[in-house]
């Protein structure tokens, strides 16, 4: 929807980019595009839809060893019993929107005594963001979200939203730094059959969007999705060796007692296990 600005229009852009509420002659809102650019410098977030839940993995950027952790997380936030989100971008901006989302979810339950359908929650936050691209002369929110949620209408769902107020549903996606690299890895690996020892033929590659009619996507379970998420994060985090302290791994599944959802941020021990599994898989694949 928003493509990178070609060099030619940069000179023209200067005259039309100061105000959010002004279109450029080519029909673009430069402030909104700049906001989207800002997020490309932020810590990466990966979201993957699994058969039994959703995985969201985020890059934690620790700016100083002296920092005292004030919250349980700076990337993952619970919105209500059945929805959570991860953030890429300006944390201060995100806090406002997260409040909005929590209020909306609560008010819906107050009114209907039922859980808000996930897409309605996402759309509400997005409509709120959209207003800042059209009214008041205020700058847009420099935040992109991955929303993960469950409802009885559509099961587990994953949505992405950006400063424009646009949103879309995904099976797997990446936001933040190096998201293009992450997305291309997901394209080849999401839904691919796990490599087995007798795999002498070329591994089948599943397309996530292009040929849905031709190939059936094999949806991973949460355990597999966690490994895939870690793989994607290692790629986006400048290809450094993945380390559990720099990642925040989150899963949402149905609670075991059947009442509501289970939100779980993996402990360091649990994260380490996933990272070790990924490294082992990479090592054995290298041997084959």
């Amino acid at each position: 929807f928003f493509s990178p600005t070609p060099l030619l229009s940069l000179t023209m852009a200067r005259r039309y980019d100061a105000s959010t509420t002004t279109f450029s002659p080519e029909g673009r809102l430069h402030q909104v595009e700049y906001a989207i650019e800002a997020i490309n410098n932020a810590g990466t977030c990966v979201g993957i839809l699994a058969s039994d839940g959703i995985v969201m993995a985020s890059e934690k950027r620790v700016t100083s060893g002296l920092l005292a952790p004030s919250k349980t997380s700076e990337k993952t936030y619970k919105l209500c019993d059945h929805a959570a989100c991860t953030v890429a971008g300006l944390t201060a901006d995100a806090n406002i929107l997260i409040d909005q989302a929590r209020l909306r979810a609560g008010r819906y339950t107050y009114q209907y005594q039922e859980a808000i359908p996930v897409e309605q929650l996402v759309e509400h936050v997005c409509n709120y963001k959209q207003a800042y691209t059209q009214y008041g002369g205020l700058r847009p929110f420099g935040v992109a979200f991955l929303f993960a949620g469950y409802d009885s209408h559509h099961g587990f769902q994953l949505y992405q939203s950006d400063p424009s107020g646009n949103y879309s549903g995904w099976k797997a996606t990446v936001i933040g730094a190096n998201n293009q690299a992450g997305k291309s890895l997901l394209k080849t690996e999401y839904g691919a059959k796990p490599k087995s020892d007798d795999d002498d033929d070329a591994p089948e590659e599943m397309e996530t969007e292009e040929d849905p009619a031709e190939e059936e996507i094999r949806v991973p379970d949460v355990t597999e999705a966690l490994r895939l998420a870690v793989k994607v994060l290692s790629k986006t985090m400048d290809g450094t060796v993945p380390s559990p302290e720099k990642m925040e791994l989150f899963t949402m599944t149905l609670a075991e007692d059947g009442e509501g959802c289970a939100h779980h941020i993996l402990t360091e021990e649990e994260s380490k296990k996933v990272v070790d599994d990924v490294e082992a898989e990479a090592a054995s694949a290298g041997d084959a």
Partner: protein
Amino acid sequence: MDTVFGVKYDGGVVIAADQGNARSILMYQRNLDKVVPLSSHSAVGVSGPNADLVNFSEYIQKNIALYELSNDGMKLSTHAQANFMRGELAAALRRGPYQVNVLLGGYDESTESSSLYFLDYLASLQKVNYGCQGYASSFCLSIMDRDWKEGLTEDEAVAIVEHCMQELHTRFLIAQPNFIIKVIDKDGVKTSKFGADPADT
């Protein structure tokens, strides 16, 4: 004084109401339909002054229609509709109350079950198996207490309503010659029978 009945059975709900529209010594109308469909699979039997009865039921009906339009055809469950309705009654209660007493019945395709809710003008809400609004409750609740059981069929549920109507015809001071009976099940809301055709102008 309006009479509204509701009886839940296995796979649906029956909602019935008298068809009179009167005030003081005057009978304005004998074919009023007081069982208002709220969605494809729910309806509410309303009682009270005609203004509130019509205004409130249409307000809820249109808000439910707006929800479905705004949310790509997603339907509100009967439980959600009932709670929404109660919220509106409660909000208005200490401003200018809606003087309506209702019985809301609906069928939910997602759970393949029916439900019936009793709401009164003070914004109370209770899920029930059967219920009455108006003076009728003094005559008919005891009949329903006796006749209702788990696992009724549609015919049995309608029979309970007709048993109640018969009692009113015998013992109730106010003559209510016409009743409209509607059935809500997996196929939607349909009129089972009426004393006078609401469509007659």
